C-alpha cells in the first residue's frame, strides 16, 4: 500500500514522473492544489512552472511550450477551462500535444464549489470552434488518476492530440493511498521547432489545405477510437439493467451493483474510463435481452446519456430505453441512486431516449 495522498497533489506528482517539462496555470477551486504543489515540486525536480495572469494566458503559454516539443501540463476547473478554449482549438489545428486536467465543479457560469460532472459535453465534443476532439480520460480513484495522468502524456504525444483528464472536485480533494510510477526524463520531441528551421516551413493554419487536413484528422480520430477505448464492466452479460457511470459516481454505482448482485438482482455497470473515445466496444458483452440503460451523472441533464443512447443504437440496442438519474452536486448517495433505480424498474420514470 502506498502513501495517503490528496488527488490533486497525486496528479501533480504523476505529471512530474511522466516527464512533464513545464506547468502553466491559474488557480481555481477545486483544482488549485495541482499548481500549488507544482509551484515548488517542479523546481525541485528541475522542471519549470509559471503562474499566468489568467486561464487563457496559461493556455497560450501551453501552446508555445508545445510548439518546441516540451511535455506541458495545465489544470483548471469548469469556467477556467472555458477560458482556455481558444488556445485549445489553436493547438488542435497545429496538432500539438498537451495534458489538461479539469477538476470539475458543478454548474453553469461561475457554478458552485461542489463536485460535479457538468463539463462532459464540452470536454468530449472539443469545446472550441472547429472539428477536433480531445482524448478524455476520467478516473474514479486517486490511484487511477495517477495512472491516467502518467499515460496521458504518452497518448498525447502518440497522437499529437490534447488529452483531458476529466475528474471531479471530490476526487481532487480526497485522500487515498496510491503508488507512484517510476520517474521519467523525456527529451523534447524532435518534430518540433528547434530554432534551426529543421522541419522547414510550418504552414500557418490559414495556409494549409483544410479539407485535406480534415480527412487526415478523421483518420487520426478513427485510430484513437479503435485503440484507446477504456472501461470497467461488471455483470453486464446477464444484466436486465445496465447502469453507466464514470468518475466518482462510477465507483458509487460499482458498490450498488455489487450489493444488488449479491441479492441476486441481474444488474450490471459499465464505467467508462475513456469518455472520448466513448467505450462503445463495451456494448459487445451486454445481454441482448437487456431491458434498460441508465446513466447516473452528477449533472442536471443527461450529458453522457446522449452517448449511451447513440452507441446503444449503433450496437443494435436501438429499442432499449435509456433513462437518466440526475444526482445533485457532490458525491452521489447510494440510497438516492437506489431509490431512483427502483422507480425506473417499477415503470414510474419515463425514458429519455
Amino acid at each position, binding site marked *: 500500500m502506498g502513501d495517503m495522498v490528496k488527488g490533486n497533489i497525486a496528479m501533480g506528482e504523476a505529471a512530474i514522473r511522466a516527464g512533464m517539462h513545464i506547468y502553466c496555470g491559474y488557480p481555481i477551486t477545486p483544482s488549485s492544489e495541482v499548481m500549488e504543489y507544482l509551484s515548488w515540486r517542479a523546481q525541485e525536480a528541475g522542471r519549470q512552472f*509559471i503562474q499566468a495572469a489568467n486561464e487563457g494566458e496559461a493556455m*497560450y503559454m501551453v501552446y508555445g511550450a508545445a510548439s518546441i516539443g516540451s511535455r506541458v501540463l495545465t489544470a483548471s476547473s469548469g469556467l477556467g477551462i472555458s477560458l482556455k478554449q481558444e488556445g485549445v482549438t489553436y493547438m488542435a489545428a497545429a496538432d500539438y500535444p498537451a495534458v489538461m486536467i479539469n477538476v470539475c465543479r458543478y454548474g453553469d457560469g461561475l457554478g458552485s464549489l461542489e463536485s460535479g460532472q457538468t463539463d462532459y459535453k464540452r470536454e468530449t465534443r472539443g469545446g472550441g470552434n472547429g472539428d477536433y476532439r480531445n482524448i478524455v480520460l476520467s478516473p474514479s480513484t486517486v490511484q487511477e488518476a495517477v495512472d491516467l495522468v502518467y499515460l496521458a502524456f504518452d497518448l498525447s504525444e502518440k497522437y499529437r492530440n490534447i488529452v483531458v483528464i476529466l475528474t471531479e472536485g471530490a476526487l481532487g480533494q480526497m485522500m487515498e493511498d496510491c503508488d507512484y510510477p517510476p520517474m521519467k526524463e523525456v527529451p523534447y520531441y524532435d518534430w518540433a521547432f528547434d530554432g*534551426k528551421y529543421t522541419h522547414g516551413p510550418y504552414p*500557418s493554419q490559414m495556409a494549409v489545405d483544410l479539407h485535406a487536413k480534415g480527412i487526415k484528422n478523421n483518420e487520426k480520430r478513427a485510430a484513437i477510437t479503435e485503440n484507446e477505448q477504456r472501461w470497467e464492466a461488471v455483470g453486464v452479460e446477464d444484466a436486465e439493467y445496465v447502469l453507466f457511470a464514470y468518475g466518482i459516481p462510477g465507483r458509487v454505482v460499482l458498490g450498488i451493483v455489487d450489493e444488488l448482485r449479491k441479492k441476486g438482482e441481474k444488474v450490471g455497470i459499465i464505467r467508462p474510463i475513456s469518455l472520448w473515445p466513448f467505450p462503445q466496444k463495451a456494448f459487445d458483452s451486454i445481454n441482448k435481452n437487456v431491458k434498460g440503460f441508465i446513466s447516473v451523472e452528477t449533472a442536471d441533464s443527461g450529458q453522457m446519456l446522449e452517448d449511451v443512447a447513440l452507441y446503444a443504437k449503433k450496437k443494435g440496442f436501438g429499442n432499449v430505453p435509456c433513462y437518466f438519474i440526475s444526482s445533485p452536486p457532490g458525491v452521489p448517495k447510494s440510497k438516492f441512486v437506489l431509490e431512483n433505480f427502483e422507480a425506473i424498474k417499477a415503470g414510474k420514470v419515463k425514458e429519455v431516449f
Partner: protein
Amino acid sequence: MAKGKKVPEKILRQVPFCPGCGHGIIVRLMMECIEELGYNDNVLIGKPVGCASLLDNALAVDTFTGAHGRNGASMTTIKRLKPDMLVVSYQGDGDAYNIGFSETMNAAYRNEKFTVITINNGNFGMTGGQMAWTSMPGQVTATSVNGRNVELSGMPIRVPEMIASSFDTAYVARGSLFTPAEIKKTKSYIKKAMQAQIDGVGHSLVEVLSPCPTNWGLTPLASMERIVNELVPYFPLGEIKNKGGK
C-alpha cells in the same frame, strides 16, 4: 557611391504587402539584425494574426503561428524553455495592444527575456481599417466613420511609455521609416533590443510608426507626411528606456 545590400539569406520571397506599406521594410530590418547578430540558425519568430499573416512561408526560420494577440504568452514559455534561442515576437498594434493587451503587458510585467517588435499603423489593417487604440483623435476609420471620438473611445494608447515607466524591462524604443536616416535609427533600436535579450538583460520592445496608405486613403508619400506631421508629435521617437548590456 551607394552600395547595394544583399537581401538577408533567410528571406525566401517577396511578401505581398500593399504598396507603400511599412511592413516590408520592418521585416527586412528584423531579418538583417538576426543575420548580423549571428542567429540565423537559432531563432524563432512569433507571427501574429493581422497583416503579418502574409509572412507565411516567406522566412526560412522557425515561425510560430500565434493566436490573435497572444504571442506575449506563447513566446514566454518558448524563451524560458529555450533560453539560448533568439525569440522575436512580430506583432501589429491591433494584435499587441488591443486584443493582446493583457498578454503583451503581462510578458513585460514579468520581464520575459524576449523581443517584441510592434508595427503601429493606427488601425486594423488586415480586416479593412477599423479603429485601433492607436488611431488618432478625429481619425476616420471603418468603425469611426465620423472621426474617432476620444470622449467615447479614449485617447490613443502609448504602450511603450506605459511599459518603460511601469515595469523593470531592459529596452524600449520607438522608431519610424519616413527617411533613410529614420530607417537606420529604427534598425539600431531593433538590434539593441535583440542584444538586450541575448545579453539576458530582460524584455525589450520596439514600436515602429508605419504607414498604411491603403486604409488611410493616402498616397505612400502623403502617408509618410502624415506620420511626420500628425503621429510623431503624439508618439515621440527615440529610445525610451535602455538599461544597457552586461
